[in-house]
């Protein structure tokens, strides 16, 4: 439970952070709620930590040019309590308030969670369902990665070495859009055994994303096709549940076998669809 020794550098700007990361084995430290436990178990042994918690430009949540922009350094608690989020992306506030416990929510950040890409983390499902883009910055400047292109496997993303997530950008949903996040928590850590995020637009287009179910969070296009543009009824909800989680590898652990997890995914999709009906 004692990490190997490492250097520590606290930076004030994103440019400083990118420069500091050019050292091979250095790693960004944000809230530390995923990285530090991994270092204590020596699963991760960076030679240097670049602490980005004091970078002011990574904080804050605002609306800008038709997008909701969440700084990568916003904590789960910041997002759960934010007025703009509560009114325009209520499932982000709900999801954030279900993460871990108070200490985790007060320190852990959305950027850290996305970069870590834990298969049971909540944010991946939420950003996928919200059609978000992940804005990243590296030595070659900024680029945007669509959430659907971001998660590439177990704890892996399309983030390049030395790239920092700076913001999460979500198109402001049209008036009348409904959202829901339904989560079955692992009783000890409260990570998602299954999390289902649904966003339904006024024209009936319906985005459905799952976390906890497979190696990485994903959009379920089979289930989306059943309800998109159609009335949500008991029949269409049942049909969507039947179509869901068909072509993915399903995780299994001592809290939920493959069979039980699949069952839970369908139940939590039903709950989410009922909530946006």
């Amino acid at each position, binding site marked *: 439970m004692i990490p190997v020794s490492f250097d520590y550098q606290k930076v004030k700007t994103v440019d400083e952070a990118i420069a500091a990361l050019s050292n091979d084995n250095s790693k960004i430290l944000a809230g530390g709620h995923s990285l530090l*436990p991994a270092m204590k178990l020596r699963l991760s042994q960076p030679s240097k930590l670049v602490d980005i918690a004091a970078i002011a430009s990574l904080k804050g949540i605002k609306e800008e040019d038709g997008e909701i922009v969440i700084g990568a350094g916003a904590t789960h608690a910041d997002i759960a309590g934010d007025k703009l989020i509560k009114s325009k992306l209520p499932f982000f506030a709900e999801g954030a308030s279900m993460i871990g416990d108070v200490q985790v929510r007060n320190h852990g950040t959305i950027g850290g969670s996305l970069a870590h890409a834990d298969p049971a983390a909540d944010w991946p499902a939420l950003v996928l369902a919200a059609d978000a883009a992940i804005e990243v910055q590296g030595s070659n400047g900024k680029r945007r990665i669509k959430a659907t292109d971001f998660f590439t496997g177990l704890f892996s993303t399309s983030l390049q070495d030395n790239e920092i997530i700076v913001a999460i950008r979500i198109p402001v949903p049209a008036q009348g859009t409904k959202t829901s996040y339904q989560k*079955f928590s*692992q*009783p*000890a*850590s409260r990570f998602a055994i299954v999390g289902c995020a649904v966003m339904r637009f006024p024209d009936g287009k319906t985005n459905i994303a799952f976390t906890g179910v497979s190696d990485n969070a994903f959009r379920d296009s089979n289930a989306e096709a059943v309800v998109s543009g159609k009335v949500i009824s008991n029949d269409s909800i049942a049909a969507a549940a039947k179509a869901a989680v068909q072509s993915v590898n399903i995780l299994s652990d*001592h809290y*939920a076998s493959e069979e*039980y997890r699949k069952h839970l995914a369908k139940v939590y999709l039903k709950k989410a669809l009922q909530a946006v009906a």
Partner: protein
Amino acid sequence: MIVEGQIHGGVAQGVGQALFEGAEYDENGQLTNASYMDYCMPRADDFPMFETGSQVTPCPHNPLGVKGAGEAGTIGSPPAVVNAVLDALWSGGHKVKDIRMPLTSERVWRAMQ
């Protein structure tokens, strides 16, 4: 006050045994829930307020008349919780006689299939 606290703690520990706690090993004998991220302990927010009652009789076997109280809650709570779950299953039409502790959600689900 001390005895009430012991009863609260004991009830919580027993409910933990009934619903959450168990050392889980894989087929190679590796403990799979070796940290509190995976091994579930009962926590304050898992419980309602407690109301306790006591039947006070002096113990005849020692000059002070005192007896132990700490384990009372722990002994009573697991069968109370397990029987409550079985009762709920029976009233829902599932004739289940026994479920192994801890009663995880998957074990209860399997018992209902």
